[in-house]
């Protein structure tokens, strides 16, 4: 089993490297180049040539890729074209802000989704189940930014409970910060809750339909005992899978929600610099988002290996 775990970790690493190549190559296919972008159409050829040399654009792509990768590995993400500031520094604070937001969304969404998923299974085909699926259908049919504005309109403007923008700074206490991010956290929760609930429900139902659950029923065991002793050990892996997959959704949802609430995080930083066509920033942010996404999927993979009885107790 150890071998399998190491193999998966190695595979994850390989994937990360391939993704870095893809992101790097993806930004190379642009018509014109970064120097042109910075100086605009009216730049003189000399100025362009100078800037190209300065940015190392005359080097072959392979060299530039390894320079870039080497920089990332040593914590140096380069400098932003538009501001000339160090990207690592800018990202540092924003990343922790983003994680703060995502963390609180996850803390609320994960237990709630699992609880509601269980509830839907317990009352399968009855009204709680139907209500839950109807709400699910609605929330997955609206883009997250629109949920954001609906909630701002309703909670912040009509009811006036929480602020409509989520601006936080270091001088704020945790409570002030939480007050500021309340609405975005609710939006993110809604965004992932629906998917997570639906998938939890399916995962548990799948386990509950197994023949060994029938065996347990025919032993006269009560429903709670059956769930605790027979369903739960087999449902851990699929549920962890569902949670990880949805945390990965959350990572993407964060980008849009930060823009809606003008929250000073990674997402807003990325979107800003995409419009400014600041390629080094986009590359760095893209890679970080992709790494988190791959990491979460990897964790799900590892958990399902670790909880598989066939792998835990080989013949």
């Amino acid at each position, binding site marked *: 089993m150890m071998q399998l775990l190491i193999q998966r970790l190695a595979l994850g690493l390989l994937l990360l490297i391939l993704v870095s190549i893809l992101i790097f190559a993806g930004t190379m296919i642009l018509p014109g180049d970064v120097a042109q972008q910075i100086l605009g159409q009216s730049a003189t050829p000399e100025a362009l040539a100078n800037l190209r040399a300065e940015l190392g654009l005359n080097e072959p792509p392979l060299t530039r890729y390894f320079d870039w990768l080497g920089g990332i590995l040593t914590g140096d993400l380069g400098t932003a074209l538009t501001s000339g500031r160090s990207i690592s520094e800018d990202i540092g604070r924003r990343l922790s802000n983003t994680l703060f937001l995502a963390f609180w969304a996850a803390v609320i969404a994960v237990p709630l989704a699992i609880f509601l998923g269980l509830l839907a299974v317990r009352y399968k085909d009855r009204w709680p189940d139907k209500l839950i699926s109807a709400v699910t259908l609605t929330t997955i049919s609206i883009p997250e930014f629109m949920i954001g504005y609906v909630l701002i309109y309703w909670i912040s403007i009509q009811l006036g409970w929480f602020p409509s923008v989520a601006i936080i700074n270091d001088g704020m206490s945790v409570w002030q910060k939480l007050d500021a991010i309340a609405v975005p956290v609710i939006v993110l929760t809604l965004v992932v809750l629906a998917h997570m609930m639906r998938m939890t429900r399916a995962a548990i139902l799948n386990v509950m339909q197994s023949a060994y659950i029938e065996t347990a029923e025919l*032993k006269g065991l009560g429903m709670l005992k059956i769930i605790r002793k027979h369903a739960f050990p087999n449902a851990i892996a699929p549920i962890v899978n569902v949670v990880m997959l949805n945390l990965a959704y959350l990572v993407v949802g964060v980008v849009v929600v930060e823009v809606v609430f003008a929250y000073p995080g990674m997402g807003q930083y990325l979107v800003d610099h995409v419009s400014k066509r600041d390629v080094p920033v986009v590359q760095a942010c893209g890679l970080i988002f992709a790494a988190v996404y791959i990491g979460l999927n990897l964790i799900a993979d590892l958990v399902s290996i670790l909880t598989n009885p066939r792998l835990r107790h080989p013949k």
Partner: protein
Amino acid sequence: MTDPLLKVRGLKIGATIYPPGEKPRDIDIVHGVDFDLAPGKVLGLIGESGAGKSTIGLASMAYGRGGVEITGGSVEVNGRDILKAPFRDVRRLRGGEVTYVSQSAAASFNPAKQIMEQVTEAAIFQNKFTKAQAEARAVELFRKLGLPDPENIGSRYPHQVSGGQLQRCMTALALCPEPDLVVFDEPTTALDVTTQIDVLAAIKDAIRDTGVAALYITHDLAVVAQVSDHIMVLQQGAMVEYGTTDQIINAPREDYTKALVSVRSIRHEEKQPTATPVLKVETITARYKGTDFDVLKDITVDLHPGQTLAVVGESGSGKSTLARVITGLLPPSAGQITFDGRTLTPDLATRPLDDLRELQMIYQMADTAMNPRQTVGTIIGRPLEFYFGLKGAEKQKRIQELLDQIELGVGFQERYPAELSGGQKQRVCIARALAAKPKLIICDEVTSALDPLVADGILKLLLELQKREDVAYLFITHDLATVRAIADSIAVMYQGSVVRYGSKSQVLSPPFDDYTDLLLSSVPEMKLGWLEEVLKHRKMESAGN
């Protein structure tokens, strides 16, 4: 006479089905069944699929699987009607007084828990025994059921023991709480024939030693004859006949029972080999890509025109792989195949159309062998069009001829496979093979998925067609009764090799090699006391242990 342990009166069971595109509909599965079971006795419930036998078995635990619901009648266990009892009492009954052994132990054990915990769970939960007592009893049962290393096998996980062993563990699970009644639901059906006999013997001994009563559910009359005191024959949810095992087997009264008893009694005269075989398989060795062992080792067999070669063996013997090699789906690593005087190329893609046409195949699962989106007419018509270029009225005429040959009437052309019964589906597959005017048809377990009476009809049809069309069959099966019914020559396969090969009379007459002896002796016979007799004369332990 003592009071019955189980008394069933007017039992009615229904279910709601959800046909696609239609409104849900209620159907009756069991319409009014009565029977008694005395303590310590075994009642066999027998019938074909759809007879409602499993449903009746589970009803004795007041349980309905899926959407099944008990709609009427009474089920008394130890004098108490469990259908009217409060749910608390029903839960005390399940796993305490009445326990259950399912067909698939592999699915019925929780993969995440050790065997011992699962075997003793009900006994402890129902306060029959303390943990220590229950475990001691489980070990004793493991020993009685002939499981290896009974002291420690309980600490293993379900995937760590073989299928035959797990089925015994399931029996131990059912017997551990000292129930009054055990429901055995096809406990040996999923096992290979040589494993089945040992599990059957273990179950029989365990029933006798513990003095428990049992409902033994199966579709195989020969099996149930070995273990039961009485037999109830069911057909489509109603009782056909009830009697002692002796009476049902030796003097059945109803026609349906008579048919079940005399099933597989087709007698087929063995034909003599001709000068030139239609198929020569010479020293074939084959393995699957990415594996490091040969699935087929040095196979050499002949098949003569208009005759049947039965290739018989258990799962994993390589018999289906042989079919894949002959059809060109799996090119062999050595050896050659001659078909109708021509050497066949190893790979399907390089074979001329005539070779493909003259070598047809019929599959085990007729369900998956026909495209669900094509009508019977299209399915049978395609080879006519593809090989002979038939069109329009000419094609229609030929399709109807083929349908007549397989004894399906007018009006079947427009039907879809889902609108046919199991036997009809297999007949259409036969017609599709015949349409190509083949010299050889490979039949891969073509009757295994069918109920015995339906299977008999298919075998009779195949024999009839062989006479008329002079087509040869390579008949792959695990079922020796089928072999006896239709073979001219037989090849017995074991672990990738042919261990015995010759004409039917040679192969089936002594002296036997050890494996053939084991295989032949393991096929349940429709007579009382067969099991004990066989076990006395065994030479070799079955492969499943």
